[in-house]
């Protein structure tokens, strides 16, 4: 790695002592000598194993659930259904007033995606729990599923989630989060060229080495200690407190080393049911996702569809940009309304464009709920924006790097969401890239600065 100190040197104090030191990570010795302890390395006498009975259907009504055979299976300690969960209906962002509550800890009347949790089985061994789970009989009436963004938004589409009542998230701004700046139609009218393109992505897995999970130990004083690999201790505690209708002081979350997060461990999917299981049985409980559950049940990065329409001048200026973005949330909100909001704030990218119109939708389908993942709301948007930018440059016969210099935002420029740009450094990154990648650009671009415009 090269620290390029020549840029912005006058904005830094380079006289710090501890800051700037390349100190080794505190956990690295443990990792390379195999001594790091993870939550699952703990052992407790009498530990029960939790396995989840999951929906085999994308969309179905539950007529009845029969757990009698499962309960008789050797080694089974307890079977838990929706009626055992004190506040079964929840949504994690309710803590910051992003509702409505739209998801059940355990399915009640319906399942809305293939893999949805229906019944929890607790047994002396993981194998016994799995065998007993296979004996739970759920009578389903299969319903038509909605599996794509396009199908979800058709007027006659079946409703995925009755708690929303429509197949998209209703923002205070309406059916989508909107950003309007300038007059995009006027921009298109003055443009030399118009380019409209559609970009898509498929769901992506966080792929941590350590799957999501926790172990809960009931303490003698009536509290519950939950050893977890969550990325957010109090987020987990506070949501568990709501779901279990249990005061927060009864709960003690202990984290530590996480074997890979990437956003995959901010949904509160394992802790509440495991704490409930420990409460109902009075025994320690382990609930750890299998690799298959991690890949197909835990929330992936959302699939997205992004339509970008640009107006560009022959001299390289983008004069209008319209973006319509769709996030496939799957069956429940989790963090997707936040992701679609973040996308609306991110467009039109790090460029100064005088006319902008953004519509960002969070769409419900009968799919595995998507949620947080490294950069969500931005990552796929950047793919779309930067491929589109490349196409625009080629459309007018301009070098793609020089084209970006022409449009790059600078300090003081007004962004589409009406914040003045501060601390920009895109131009300097491109100048350095031009040097290290041996991609020469015209001298006038090498003289540009993010700190202001040339006269």
């Amino acid at each position, binding site marked *: 790695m090269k620290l390029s100190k020549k840029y912005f040197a006058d904005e830094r104090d380079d006289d710090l*002592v*501890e800051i700037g030191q*390349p100190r080794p990570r505190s956990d690295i010795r443990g990792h390379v000598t195999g001594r790091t302890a993870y939550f699952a390395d703990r052992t407790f006498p009498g530990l029960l194993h939790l396995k989840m009975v999951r929906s085999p259907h*994308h969309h179905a009504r539950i007529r009845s659930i029969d757990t009698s055979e499962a309960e008789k299976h050797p080694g089974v300690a307890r079977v838990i259904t929706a009626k055992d969960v004190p506040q079964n209906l929840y949504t994690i962002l309710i803590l910051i007033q992003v509702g409505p509550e739209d998801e059940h800890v355990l399915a009640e009347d319906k399942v809305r995606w293939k893999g949805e949790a229906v019944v929890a089985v607790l047994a002396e061994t993981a194998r016994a729990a799995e065998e007993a789970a296979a004996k739970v009989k759920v009578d389903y009436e299969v319903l038509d599923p909605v599996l794509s963004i396009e199908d979800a938004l058709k007027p006659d589409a079946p409703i995925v989630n009755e708690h929303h009542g429509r197949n998209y998230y209703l923002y205070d701004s309406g059916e989508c989060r909107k950003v309007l700046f300038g007059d995009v139609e006027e921009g298109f009218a003055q443009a030399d060229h118009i380019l409209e393109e559609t970009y898509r992505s*498929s769901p992506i897995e966080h792929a941590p080495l350590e799957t999501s999970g926790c172990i809960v130990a009931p303490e003698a004083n009536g509290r519950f200690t939950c050893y977890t690999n969550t990325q957010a201790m109090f987020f987990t505690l506070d949501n568990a407190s709501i779901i279990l209708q249990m005061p927060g002081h009864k709960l003690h979350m202990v984290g530590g080393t996480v074997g890979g997060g990437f956003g995959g461990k901010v949904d509160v999917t394992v802790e509440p049911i495991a704490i409930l299981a420990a409460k109902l049985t009075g025994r320690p409980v382990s609930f750890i996702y299998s690799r298959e559950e991690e890949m197909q049940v835990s929330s*992936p990065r959302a699939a997205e569809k992004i339509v970008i329409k640009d107006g560009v001048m022959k001299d390289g200026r983008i004069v209008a940009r319209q973006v319509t973005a769709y996030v496939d949330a799957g069956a429940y909100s989790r963090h997707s309304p936040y992701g679609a909001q973040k996308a609306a704030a991110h467009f039109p990218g790090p460029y100064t464009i005088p006319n902008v119109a953004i519509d960002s939708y969070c769409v419900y389908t009968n799919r595995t709920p998507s949620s947080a993942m490294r950069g969500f709301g931005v990552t796929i948007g950047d793919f779309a924006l930067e491929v589109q930018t490349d196409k625009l440059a080629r459309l007018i016969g301009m070098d793609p790097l020089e084209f970006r210099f022409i449009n790059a935002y600078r300090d003081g420029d007004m962004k589409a969401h009406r914040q003045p740009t501060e601390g920009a450094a895109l131009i*300097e990154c*491109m100048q350095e890239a031009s040097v290290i*990648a041996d991609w020469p650009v015209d001298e006038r671009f090498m003289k540009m600065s993010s700190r202001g415009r040339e006269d």
Partner: protein
Amino acid sequence: MALRRGRGVAAVNYPTGMNLGGDPTQALVHSTPTGSFMVTLSSVDLGQGLRTVIAQICAETMGVPTESVTIDTADTDTGPHCMGTFASRGTHRVGNAVVQAAREARQVMLEVAAEELEVDPADLETDGQGNIRVKGASNLNISIFDTALAAHFKQGRSISGRGMFLVPRSYPETETGAMKPSTCYAHACTVAEVEVDDETGEVSVLSVKNVFEIGRALNPKMVEQQLIGGSWMGISHALYETTEPYYPNRTQGPRDYNAYLMPGPGDLAETEIAVLERPSGDGPFGAKGPGEMCANPQIPAVANAIFDAVGVRVDTLPITPERVLRALKEMEAAGAG
């Protein structure tokens, strides 16, 4: 049929912290009787090195060696609230809370030392080696060890501090979308070079040259490991990864690492990293959050390089050999027609 080379560029920015703010983090700092310092948090270190960088931030602010700082975190019984480790917020949010807590603790530490030295606290400075001395008269000094002992057993004072950092929540205006998504942004530009086999559609990424502007590299080695890891993840997103290869069709989803495709050691590109520092106005020592951004620019850079190599656009991720080959055949058919 041939192996064809191309290169592509992409430039991006990325907001630091939870979008629209409203994501608090608290920190507490206190000294032990012998002048070690304990930072108590509930933040989670995901392996990116949060504990190490937070110890450095505390040490720099207190004016003590990093070795004397211990981080106690990820326990809700001892640590005050933190929103969590996500949204490129750890270093920025937790760091700011720790700076505030450490400033308060440093002030008490200097007052205790001043009492022992019979001078004004404003005349004191730390030497960064575990001592406090009078500015311009370094023979008048006291160790932090002795200062902490005096605080505990003689003066009865708690060398401690409280820190809280919250970016006030922004509420978007419904018609125009006017809002404040973030207080600072990191930046990047990536140039990727690829080789495409136009017979099989297979893409090899030969090199990725990344420039990242991250505010301040508080710990350059940890910055480097995160930026390199992110760069590889970007390549992986561009060419390999999905849980649903035929989305929206739900069949053929991988269930383990035999079927979930990711690049192996032999598939990783030569990776070059350059880091620029334009300090943020509100980050600890100017830091911004590069954790998520560093995996983004490689995706479009690789896509653009593929076009440069073979003249086809694959606008759907991941850009699998199947999709490249189909696009090549389509182009060929269109040319023949």
